[in-house]
């Protein structure tokens, strides 16, 4: 696991985030959200700081980080591709799209490409079911996706 807190700037950012909930265990999930937003992932050294700052046992922090799908302790790719496999997207061919993306990028679900360009995730529903099958890349949502459109979509991201 790579470390985040090797420089002053990151340490300061983390301190700021924690300070809003200092000593309050119930703020754990909010703090984790903001830490992940700031750093892209939440490695052990960050967890240790959070545990200390919020007065929560490290095991509990670890339990929460690993329980919720959104949090990750390993760095992700520069761009995150999420293929929706909610019911509507599944029924409209989402599985084939997933297979195609996996094939194209040579990675598995949850994996990251060698050049760290893309990470691939399954998302269980982004709520755009009317436009299925849906694929999101970072904040961009693509609708009515077909296998033929995938290379074009991916080529937009460096």
């Amino acid at each position, binding site marked *: 696991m790579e470390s985040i807190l090797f420089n002053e700037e990151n340490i300061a950012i983390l301190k700021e985030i924690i300070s809003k909930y200092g000593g309050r265990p119930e*703020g754990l999930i909010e703090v984790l959200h903001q830490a992940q937003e700031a750093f892209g992932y939440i490695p052990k050294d960050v967890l240790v700081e959070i545990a200390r700052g919020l007065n929560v046992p490290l095991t509990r922090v670890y339990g929460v980080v690993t329980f919720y799908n959104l949090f990750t302790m390993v760095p992700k790719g520069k761009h995150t591709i999420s293929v929706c496999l909610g019911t509507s997207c599944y029924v409209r061919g989402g599985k084939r799209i997933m297979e195609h993306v996996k094939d194209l990028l040579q990675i598995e679900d949850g994996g990251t490409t060698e050049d760290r360009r893309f990470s691939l995730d399954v998302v269980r529903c982004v709520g755009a079911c*009317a436009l299925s099958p849906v694929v999101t890349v970072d904040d961009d949502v693509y609708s009515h996706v077909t296998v033929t459109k995938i290379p074009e979509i991916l080529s937009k991201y460096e």
Partner: protein
Amino acid sequence: MREVSEVIIRSESDLDAVRAEVEAADSGYRYKLLVCLGAGCISSGSEAVRDALLEELGRRNLSEEIRVVGTGCIGCCGSGPVVLVQPDGVLYQGLKPEDAIDIIDGHILNGVFIERLLYKKPDDGDVVPLMKDIPFFKYQTKNLLRFCGQIDPTRIEEYIALDGYRALSKVLGSMTPEDVIEEIKSSKLRGRGGAGFPTGLKWSFTRTAKAEPKYVVANADEGDPGAFMDRCLLEGDPYSLIEGMAIAGYAIGAHKGYIYIRAEYPLAVNRLRQAIEQAKDWGLLGNDIMGSGFSFDIEMRMGAGAFVCGEETALLASIEGKRGVPRPRPPFPAEKGVWGKPTALNNVETLANVPMIIREGAEWFSGFGTGKSGGTKMYSLAGDVKNTGLIEVPIGTEMGRIIYNIGRGCREKKDFKAVQSGGPSGGCIPKEHLSVRVDYETLDELGAIMGSGGLVVMDEDTCMVDIARYFLEFCLSESCGKCTPCREGFLRMLEILERITTGEGKEGDIERLEELAHIIVDTALCGLGRTGPNPVLSTIRYFRDEYEAHIKYKKCPAGVCEALFDSPCQNACPAGLDTHGYVALISEGRFGEALSLIRERNPFPSVCGRICTHPCEFKCRRGETDDPVALRLLKRFVSEYVSAAPRSYQRSSNGVRVAVVGSGPSGLTAAYHLAMMGYETTVFEALPVAGGMMAVCIPDYRLPKDVLNAEIEAIHELGVEIKTNQRLGEDFTFDSLFGQGFKAVYLAVGAQRSRALGIQGEDLEGVYKGLRFLMDVNLGEKIELGEKVVVIGGGSTAIDSAKSAIRLGASEVTVYYRREREDMTATDEEITEAENEGVRFRFMVVPTKILGEGGKAAQMLCAQLRPGEFDSSGRRRPVPVEGQEFTVDIDSVIVAVGQTTDLSFFTNEGEVSTTKFGTIIVDEDTMETSKTGVFAGGDVIRGPATVVEAIADGIKAASAIDKFLGGSGKLVEVTRKKARIDEIPFDLEAEIVEQRRVEAPLLPPEERVLGFREVEQGYTLNDVIEEAKRCLHCDRKLME
């Protein structure tokens, strides 16, 4: 945009003042252009459309007169981006930024609607400009969603102007907490999250709980895949929830509320945050609301991607910063909720309904809905349905109305199979139950649940076993892991389903699944566990035959479970033809081998290449990109290019005699295979010609007789004896055949009796039965039809009768059908070609009487029909419209309303067991009837079906008879050298480019009607190779 000043609201008259100010600010605008900025439309590009409108208006200096408003979800998500032009009420859809100019030029400046951007009715292409007239909206009741899509969700003053916060004002000014609870109770509002617990009751429990402080929690963790209503509501009208929560707080005695919202909804999170800030700024949230002394504050909490956190106790744990693990109840949240204090935890939709109930009154609210449940419900309609989006209808609305009137049915001519209601906790509703009035209890009875309101429509391409596996996999991965039934039980169930979908199902698997399911339902700790088995139980209940096909026959009828078939096209062919094989061979120009491959199973490639209903093409994956590969035409090409059978084939006889009764496709196919296996086969045919329906009922313009006879001749050349003018029951019987030394009999006499309409006048001269009419035409009989001919029916026989009538010289031929065009069983191609030839169609009509003059038909009395209730076929039963009978003058009537079997040849009653429909009962595996040694197949066991199914039965019967007589049942291969298909090169890396199907020429309509020349011309050599190369090679799987 003219600003409305922020003001601290202290009274109702303050609200009035805001409204007046908003109305004044708006009054200066000639038009308001409402652009949907719901998440769905944003991803379709609506922000660019809004920007284009603003830019164009700016350029023309119209910004002071025309207002552009970004609103929340209007609902028709599948047709976005959309713009609603007020005050006209005109809706434009499917917009691109460049359309902005047309809208402003045409509509705004010149009052002319832009037709190409309006909704078009699918049947006649008429445009429907006004949103309220569009079926998708017409059949809805937007009560809760009345703000969504109408207001700018970032401006609280617009909410106030449309009566927002009147309810809270009324509550704080003139109602006690008990009054509020009573009102909610009498409204019959029930929890909209899915369980349907009466909201008023829940609040009164929370109020009477002793501990302090109390809390209100809104569950905005809409985790059901397929549900997006709450999302749309929060993005488009965040204020209703906030007002509702404040009222709830007042009612139960709470001063703090939490909104728990899933992280996957960033836009909704932002709009809520903004709305909360605004409400605070305007004195409508926080301390001393409206000067009443009542304080209520709201904090937002985000989820982090855990479905289980939609469960109430898991959600509360998550608010407390812990893992979302449920705990046992009692105590319920009303007694011990967040921080161990009494909590009213309600779904977003439930709370958002509250202001409306207070304002309009409980009686008004409960007027919508049923006796047990008041109000309307939001649904997200998605999946294989034409109109996807956000809808709202009263509780108790018929499911068929939602799917068909609002949703417009399934896409691309696919058949409806089921609708999943309630997500992973719910169940499927099959077409037999489309008449169900959707309510909590009615859905429970059917094994489904109301759930949060996600409705996912599934068509015939969905495998219900695969769907069950999909939901189970979801539940297992979202299980918190705390209790054994859920954690271990789902795993075991999933293992069984994995085995079934990969061809390793075992006898007893279904029972094991049911047993596990019931144990988990009874013992799991929380809602996720207790409802997780529902999709499995539900699919077993309604689609048990699909499970059995997977387990017993290792077959996936829907063509989804890839381990059970090579390619979807082969899987769909009832005769099991190696479709992908012959397509690959054709693409290489190896036509002879392609034909041999086809003839390994099907001795009628010329026939099928012309008239097959091609179920293979409906499953062709190429069809998902552009058009399915033209498998039928490919088959036709090789059947013409290469001469029929390899004449050099020698077969040896085993001396055993088998009789076949009926020389239709089923009988002759069986005879073909039996002869190949070495049997001395004799076919007995009642008519003077061989070929059954293929010969006498399919007109020459679809299937020239010389083509058919060549293939029959090829079967004869194998040594099959065909005896015509031999009728079962008159010239021979089963026993006489056995007496002559035949060891087995295959009965394939079809279903040749025409159904009657059962109306007065059917026996008049000039009234023909469809099959009889076609037979007469085919055998060259002279028929005087006159000028005005009406054909009654909707299948191929009706269409062929109509086309034949035109060719015989009738000048006015109309087909009358009792349902709609899309319900006709004839193929699209057939119907369109009939129209091109001048046949007219009239739908939703039925004849009630035929009147004669001098014994000859002269007039027909008819009833106009309208769609009534949904029946068990999943379609609306047509019912007559009062007072709309009409009369038409006719010269001839051809009745083609279906066929039944004619079993008059049975000499003894009960010699062979039949169903009450008159079809013969056979063993599913051996095809043997109740009489030993007599087998049956084709229409006589299925009722009227297709040629390819008859051929499939013939193949199966030959194999079964061989086994019966001591053989292995294996078919004999025609080719000596099996075509080496795997040698054919295939480029894995090739990109799939859109390329539509190659058209095959048809005779021009003017030429066709002059006679009975074949209409379809078939492919040229270059065309056929190009078409074959469009195949995606679905059978090629990567070997690890």
